[in-house]
């Protein structure tokens, strides 16, 4: 029996290489998840390191981003999780993951992971999600992330939050940096 489901694939684009329409579409899809204020996206999307678009045939069904967050906020997260020694200014945040409701549980998240793996495999990464967001919290563990410290409340959200990391040293080593090789 053949599987006639349209294939899902993801692609990486730097914001500066995206058209204005693609940037607007990215923001619209994140807003559909209801997790991020529009002001944060308008300010933050152009400054992202990389945008990820998940496609089913020619339709964008989900997005995600890699970015360097504001340094104060970044430190604040690791302090709140009670692991300030793990704070790493080189760590990219995987954020704004949003899959349109009709397309969830069809492999979009693993498609994002596969596509970004080559780009992120050597880099320290982190992410934060609602502790009770099971759409993210379970699958993300299979993708190599582990929880850093404890769940916490922050001024930025009414929800309890969970900080997850990948490729992070237990204690930040200031001698390490990104090298081209």
């Amino acid at each position, binding site marked *: 029996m053949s599987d006639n489901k349209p294939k899902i694939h993801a692609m990486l684009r*730097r*914001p*500066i*290489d995206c058209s204005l329409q693609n940037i607007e579409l990215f923001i619209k899809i994140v807003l559909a998840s209801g997790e991020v204020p529009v002001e944060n996206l308008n*300010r*933050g999307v*152009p*400054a992202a390191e990389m945008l990820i678009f998940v496609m089913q045939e020619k339709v964008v069904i989900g997005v995600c981003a890699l970015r*360097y*967050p*504001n*340094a*104060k906020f970044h430190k604040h997260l690791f302090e709140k999780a009670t692991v300030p020694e793990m704070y790493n200014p*080189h760590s990219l945040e995987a954020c704004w993951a949003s899959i349109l409701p009709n397309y969830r549980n069809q492999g979009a998240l693993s498609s994002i992971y596969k596509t970004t793996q*080559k780009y992120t495999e*050597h*880099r*320290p990464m982190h992410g934060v999600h609602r502790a009770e967001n099971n759409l993210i919290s379970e699958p993300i563990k299979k993708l190599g992330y582990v929880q850093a410290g404890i769940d916490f409340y922050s001024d930025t959200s009414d929800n309890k939050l969970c900080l997850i990391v990948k*490729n992070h040293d237990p204690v930040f080593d200031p001698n*390490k*940096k*990104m*090298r*081209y*090789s």
Partner: protein
Amino acid sequence: MPKNLNNLKTIVRRPQDCSDKMKEEFIRLVAEGGEAEENRVRLSLPYTETLIFTGVGNHIYGVGALLRPRINFIQHLFQCAGEPQMANPHSVESCWISVSIRHRGKGVWRHNNAAKEEFLGNRPYHSLRRVDNKNVSDPAKEKIYIHVGKDFYSPISKDKLRLIAANHDPIFNPKKTFVYM
């Protein structure tokens, strides 16, 4: 001959970590240099990787930036210079270098440049200079750069341009990437 300023300090900061006041001062100083249009700087500033500020105390005397240009634009520049095989999509552009007219010849630019080199390490980067801008068009003054190919005209400018690059392989190697170490 003016003396170098004492107590110069340079900070390398991502735009998301800069206050609005710092960004406005950055734009003002670049505009003062007269090499880039204010509107273009304002539009592209969110896409920069880092802004580099040099000054004494709270006073900023010189700035520079590292911009991740459009990949098409990188290819265009290296093609114009007659060396398309050197185009490297990982290369950042060192741009918007400007020192306040009152503080030129006092070591500000050198201080700013040293911090940039320290930040970049072995990463590939490039810069575009007007050939007629004798202060900065000679790559021998900045030992890390090589002059790429030949000087050229491009639709982006009425002036003859010179492309200089650092840490670029003679032929781009797609297997090279960034490793955290």
